[in-house]
């Protein structure tokens, strides 16, 4: 999927993550700031990259402000930001590339 416009999802509340995606042309540029970076930085990055790959996002600037979100929340926020950047909110591929 292409990132058509800047879009954001999530909040800065505890256990949540705020994800911003912006159009890019230089592969995936991922910036992560996290309150649990030491323990979970590696896993947060892995989940974000896997999710973007599943959604077939090849070029994007992605910023994550993580407040201790679980993997399921991280995925949800990344997916939401990507679909928002495409203006899509219906007939989503639940269980397909969203999984």
């Amino acid at each position, binding site marked *: 999927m292409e990132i058509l416009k800047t879009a954001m999802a999530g909040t800065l*509340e505890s*256990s949540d993550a705020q994800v911003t995606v912006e159009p890019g042309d230089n592969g995936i540029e991922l910036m992560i700031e996290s309150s649990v970076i030491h323990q979970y930085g590696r896993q947060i990055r892995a989940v974000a990259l896997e999710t973007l790959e599943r959604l077939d996002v090849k070029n994007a600037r992605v910023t994550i402000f993580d407040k201790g979100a679980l993997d*399921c929340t991280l995925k949800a926020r990344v997916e*939401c930001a990507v679909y928002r950047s495409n203006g899509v909110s*219906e007939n989503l591929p639940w269980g397909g590339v*969203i999984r």
Partner: protein
Amino acid sequence: MHPNKKRLRRSMMFLNCQKPGLIKDPYIYKPDSIMLDLEDAVAENQKDAARYSLFHALQEIDYHGVERVVRINGLDTPHWKEDIRVCVAGGADTIRIAKTETAQDVRTVEEHVLAAEREFGRPEGSTLLMAALESCKGVLNALEVCQSSDRLIGIALSGGDYTKDLQTTITGTGVELMGARQHMIMAARAAGVQCWDTVFTNLDDMEGFEKETRMIKLMGFDGKSLVNPRQIAVVHKVFTPAEKEIVFAEKVVREIDDKKAKGIGVFTVDGKMIDIAFYDGAKRTLAMAKAAGVYKGEL
């Protein structure tokens, strides 16, 4: 019949799908059901975001046997169709239909649920439905709603919207809800489905909450919609049968099983006339006692 259609549902706790901290482990409070909310708790511009959270919660969090109900947006909104798709795809146990007014509303949802079950390869009929009645029209149509679908497990009163429609307010005395409660429980029983009372929102008045819970139990309700985990223990306490009731129920079940085999229809237990009509009630008492942890027997 779906094996879970009549499961125990004393406590049905609302949770905002948009709050990751809330949805990660509500089962530790041991409610019978959680109701993940896509409707009122979610802001209009976050309806999409809530669905992704819901989907992954349903797919990835082990709720340890707690029933996962999802409250979808009303049929008068642009959201309900996608809500149904995500519920079914995620494997929600039950869908709570907001603002139900007619049997047709339930059937409309049912159609879309069936389509989604086919789309996502879920067994047809696996997703149950419950209807929230939130208007005078809905309450008056309670019987047809209760009889609208095999998937329908029951009806729930939504007191806030209903009293607005009545042009009154929640007073705490229960007088404004009296008619709806009586009417709904009768409709539910007539149709053989369950019935749940509305939420009690004043968390500082735990005494009032317990009083209301005792009242609705006496009226016949199966349980209550809840807004806070603090309320769960109170509901379970009220719905826990007394020691005497448990002992009696156990005797009734044993005697009926025994006498049925011998072809005897009417007999006495502890001096009381008993027949087969007592069987379901006694079974319910034992199930409730078991859920409350006060009955460890095998019946």
